[in-house]
Structure formats: structure tokens, C-alpha cells
């Protein structure tokens, strides 16, 4: 089997047995990126020289007797994570010239674990989008069909792992931006509990919703990657000081007696072929000993409108830092300070980012605050409460990740509300701060689909365990996009 088709554990074993070096492995992936990224546009920046230097360091560390599941394993970071000395664009013209002066905690932790950064992944501008079409650097193409989107906002991270340009990648999920592209690209993606992974050095979109996570081909690989980035960080005031369990150690646990609830509101009006895939996944979980039932969360259908008040409100505040003064794009020849602000922001931000800033400004403005922002925060409380009540009855919730498979590039970009409805199944977990995972569960029209599991706070180990057992019983996650095997 070729190196790019191996699991992280297999690669670590091969490195340990000196079957190949990290430098050789890194070179292999860099060659794949060189050959395949042109058609995919999954990476904004390739850091080849730096990757080979980091790989050489990893090889020396291993030669000196150090062990580690990620020592010498290559990865790709979403371009939302600050990387010291490397351009960090966030998919925006605004930061096209921004060289981060420090590492995000996620980046620093993976570096300390010996993982080798191959480059920075394309993404929707400031993570605002569900198709990776809002990027200043152009759309990412789905490896399963180059005319289709890979999902977003972490579209480059998902396409890169699906095309086997790296064994794993990092992403962020504010309303589904890990799970939705994982589903549409046929891979596994986990969004941890809010506060589980540090947001330090992760460019903020909506601070009460943003959370970092990982993409990999399997839950077993995702468990290793998540274990490396999770944990308390004093530099993030919302980081939670809860010990990180050994996710890899609990992967194999039996599912006998696990109570899984099918979310009624998710299964209503589900497209029949999508519904059949979810029913088949439920059958697999039942065959593994899980008990399934149906659970109702009546306020959940309001999660998309709730999100499209809360997230733009927070974005309008967070993105006020981009003013053309201290970093980022500055317009030419500003005639006064107001002109400097307005033109730098007007020219530096793309259309969707401007639309969200204006939506947020509107819902926070005098006269509308109570009707929109305060109301949305109350509905958010209702939704979170219903999730809490559901987890009194079941251990995990299940449903689809997306309403449809990957859609065509250009098909939805002109209609924001239609685009927003892509995230109808994923947003609830963000509003309630819950961990959730998407895993491949079959195909519709030859394109991959995902099944989503949502758990109570800090149940990442349980989610990874459930998906790992599912993946031992199925082979959807092993299917490679044609031409990328």
C-alpha cells in the first residue's frame, strides 16, 4: 500500500521501524501536493522547505529515542491558525500580507508533538461560508467531483485529507465548518466541546461558537490528532481546565447498551436517499449492541435563524479590529482617518464577510437589539436546554450531517439564505457548545454523505469510540475519491 493510504498509527510504526524517515514521508506528501493541488486549490501556502526542516528534526528526535504517535507525521493547518513567520491569510485579501508573529496554541502543540506542517489550507474568508467559495484565493474543488464544492468553511482542510495530501488536518467549526466539509468530502471530522481546544491564535469569527478540531480519514486517526491539541490553555480565557482522556485508548470499547437517540426534527423531511443512509447507520449501531430510540428537540428547527443573529453579531464586533492601522490591508492614499477605515475595510473584505458584518451591526443596533440579538440568545438557551434534557435519556444523538451531497460550484453562492440552510443539522451543537463528529456513511449520486453523532459536554472519547466501532463494521471511510487512492 502506498504511504499516503496508511493510517497515522501505521505511519508511526513505519517510522519507528525505520522503514522510512519523516523526511522521506514529508517529501512524498509534498510531491503529491505538487502534482494534485493545482486542480484542487486546497492549499493557499505550501511550506516545503520548512516542512523538510521540521521532518529532519523529527527524525533526529526519534533517533535520540523519543516516541510519539505524531512524531514525524505530516499535517496541514487551516489558514485561520497563526503560524509564526508564515503568512496567515484567513482566506481574505485583508490578511493577504499578514505574517503571523506567533504560533496558535493548536500549532504550538502539534509542533511540540513533532508533527510536520506541509502548508496552510484554503478556507472560506474568515470562516464565513459553507462551500469554500468565499475565499479570496478562489474556490476549493471536491476530489470526488472537481465541479462540486468540498463544503466549508474548512474546505481546503477537508479536500486535502480526502485527496490524501496529508494524513490529517486542522479545522475550525463555528456552525458546522468541520462536520459539513468532512461529510461532503467523504472523511471523518470532529468538533470538540466548546473550551476543549484553545482558541489562542485562532482568528476569531464568533467567539461563543468557534472551536478547533481535526479532519482525518478515520476516527482512530482523529483520536490521535485531537489528543495532541486538546487541553487547558491559560492564554484562552474560555479554555476549560478538564483533564484530557486518552482518546486512542478508549476507541475499542464495546457499544453494548449505548443509548443512541435519533433526532426527530432531523429525520423529518429528510430526502429519502439520505434518510436510508441514516437508517442503515442506525442498523449498524444496533448490530453492535446499541439501543436506539427517537428523541425530540422541538426548538431545534430555530437553530439556523438563531445562529444567523448570534454569529454575525459576534463577527461584527470581532472584525472591527481590521482597521488598516496595525496590520492587514490598507487602502492607498486615504484622505482622512474615516476614509482609511472605510476603504481599507470595504476593499479588504469580500462580499459575504461584509454582508455578515452588516447583519451583525443591524441586529445589535438601537431599536433592534431586543427583537433580534436578545431574542436569539433566549432561543439559544431553549435549544441548549433541550439538548441537556435529551442527554438525560440517551448517551448520544444521531442524524445526518448535511441535507444533500456536495453541490455544484456556483449553485448557491448568490442566495445567502439557501446557503445558510446547508448547516441546518450542524448548528445546534455549536449553539449548545457540544462535541459532535461526522463520519462517512454512504453515497448519494456517487458523492459521499456523512452521519453525525452529537454528545454531551466532554464526550469526545465516546463519540470517537462509537465511530471507530462503526468504521470497524463498515468500509465507507476507506473509499478513496477516484484518482486519489
Amino acid at each position, binding site marked *: 500500500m502506498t504511504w499516503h493510504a496508511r493510517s497515522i498509527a501505521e505511519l508511526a510504526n513505519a517510522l519507528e521501524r525505520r522503514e522510512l524517515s519523516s523526511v522521506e514521508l514529508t517529501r512524498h506528501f509534498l510531491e503529491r501536493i505538487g502534482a494534485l493541488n493545482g486542480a484542487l486549490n486546497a492549499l493557499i501556502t505550501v511550506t516545503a522547505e520548512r516542512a523538510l526542516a521540521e521532518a529532519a528534526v523529527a527524525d533526529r528526535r526519534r533517533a535520540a529515542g523519543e516516541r510519539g504517535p505524531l512524531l514525524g507525521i505530516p499535517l496541514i493547518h487551516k489558514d485561520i491558525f497563526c503560524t509564526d513567520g508564515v503568512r496567515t491569510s484567513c482566506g481574505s485579501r485583508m490578511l493577504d500580507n499578514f505574517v503571523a508573529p506567533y504560533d496558535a496554541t493548536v500549532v504550538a502543540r502539534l509542533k511540540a508533538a513533532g508533527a510536520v506542517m506541509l502548508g496552510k489550507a484554503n478556507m472560506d474568508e474568515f470562516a464565513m461560508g459553507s462551500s469554500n467559495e468565499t475565499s479570496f484565493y478562489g474556490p476549493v474543488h471536491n476530489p470526488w467531483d472537481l465541479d462540486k464544492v468540498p463544503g466549508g468553511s474548512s474546505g481546503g482542510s477537508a479536500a486535502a485529507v480526502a485527496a490524501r495530501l496529508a494524513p490529517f488536518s486542522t479545522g475550525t467549526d463555528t456552525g458546522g465548518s468541520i462536520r459539513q466539509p468532512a461529510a461532503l468530502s467523504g472523511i471523518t471530522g470532529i468538533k470538540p466541546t466548546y473550551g476543549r481546544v484553545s482558541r489562542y491564535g485562532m482568528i476569531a469569527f464568533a467567539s461563543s461558537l468557534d472551536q478547533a478540531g481535526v479532519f482525518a480519514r478515520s476516527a482512530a486517526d482523529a483520536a490521535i490528532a485531537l489528543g495532541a491539541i486538546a487541553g487547558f490553555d491559560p492564554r484562552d480565557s*474560555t479554555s476549560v481546565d478538564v483533564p484530557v482522556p486518552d482518546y486512542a485508548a478508549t476507541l475499542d470499547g464495546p457499544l453494548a447498551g449505548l443509548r443512541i437517540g435519533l433526532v426527530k426534527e432531523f429525520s423529518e423531511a429528510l430526502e429519502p436517499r439520505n434518510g436510508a443512509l441514516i437508517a442503515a447507520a442506525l442498523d449498524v449501531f444496533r448490530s453492535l449492541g446499541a439501543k436506539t430510540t427517537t428523541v425530540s428537540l422541538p426548538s431545534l428547527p430555530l437553530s439556523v435563524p438563531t445562529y444567523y*443573529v448570534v454569529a454575525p453579531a459576534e463577527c461584527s464586533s470581532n472584525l472591527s479590529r481590521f482597521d488598516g*492601522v*496595525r496590520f492587514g490591508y490598507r487602502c492607498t492614499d486615504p484622505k482622512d482617518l474615516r476614509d482609511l477605515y472605510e476603504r481599507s475595510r470595504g*476593499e479588504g*473584505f469580500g462580499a459575504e464577510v461584509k454582508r455578515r458584518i452588516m*447583519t451583525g451591526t443591524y441586529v445589535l443596533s438601537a431599536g433592534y437589539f431586543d*427583537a433580534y440579538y436578545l431574542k436569539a*440568545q433566549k432561543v439559544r438557551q431553549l435549544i441548549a436546554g433541550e439538548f441537556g434534557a435529551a442527554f438525560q435519556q440517551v448517551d448520544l444523538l444521531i442524524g445526518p450531517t448535511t441535507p444533500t451531497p456536495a453541490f455544484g460550484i456556483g449553485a448557491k453562492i448568490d442566495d445567502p439564505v439557501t446557503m445558510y440552510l446547508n448547516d441546518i443539522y450542524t448548528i445546534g451543537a455549536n449553539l449548545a457548545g457540544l462535541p459532535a463528529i461526522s463520519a462517512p456513511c454512504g453515497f448519494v449520486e456517487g458523492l459521499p454523505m456523512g452521519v453525525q453523532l452529537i454528545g454531551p459536554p466532554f464526550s469526545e472519547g465516546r463519540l470517537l469510540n462509537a465511530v471507530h466501532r462503526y468504521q470497524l463494521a463498515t468500509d465507507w471511510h476507506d473509499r478513496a475519491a477516484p484518482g486519489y487512492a
Partner: protein
Amino acid sequence: MSLTSRDVEKIAHLARLGITDQEKPVYASSLSKIVEFVDQLARAETDGVTPMAHPLEGLTQRLRADEVSEGDDHEKFQRNAAAVQAGLYLVPKVIE
């Protein structure tokens, strides 16, 4: 509720976003659709519900000792600025 180009102008000004006259009706149309979409929140029964600002509500915000924890990196940070002089950020003249 429907937003006009005039509303968009006002919002863009509050957000210090320069938008062109051609863009105004386009944003008026898409923002109207978004506002119409989020208007369905009005039907939720939320009397007596405490607004949720954050998923970690109930956890107290950590405090740290009031000690210097970061070094002076201003030269490194200012390499990203468009215009700097003597360690200061330059902007167009504010006071005539």
C-alpha cells in the same frame, strides 16, 4: 421587514465599511432576505428565559495575577503595519 439602500448606507457607516452605490441595492436585497429569515425567531415562546451568552455559563471567569507575562515584541508586530515611524503607527492627520 425590508431594508432600503438608505438603511444599508446607515449600517455600513456604523460598521465603517466602504460600499459602492452599485452595491447598496444588492446588499439591501440580501440583508432583507436574511432579516426576513431570522424574523421567524419571533414565534418562539421565550417568556422568562434567561438569555444565553455563552455555552460555558455558570463557570466563573478565571483571573490571573497582575504580572507581566509577555515580552516586548513591538518590532516584530509592527512588521505587519502599513506605516510605522519611531515605533508608532502612522495614520492620516486627525487634527487640522
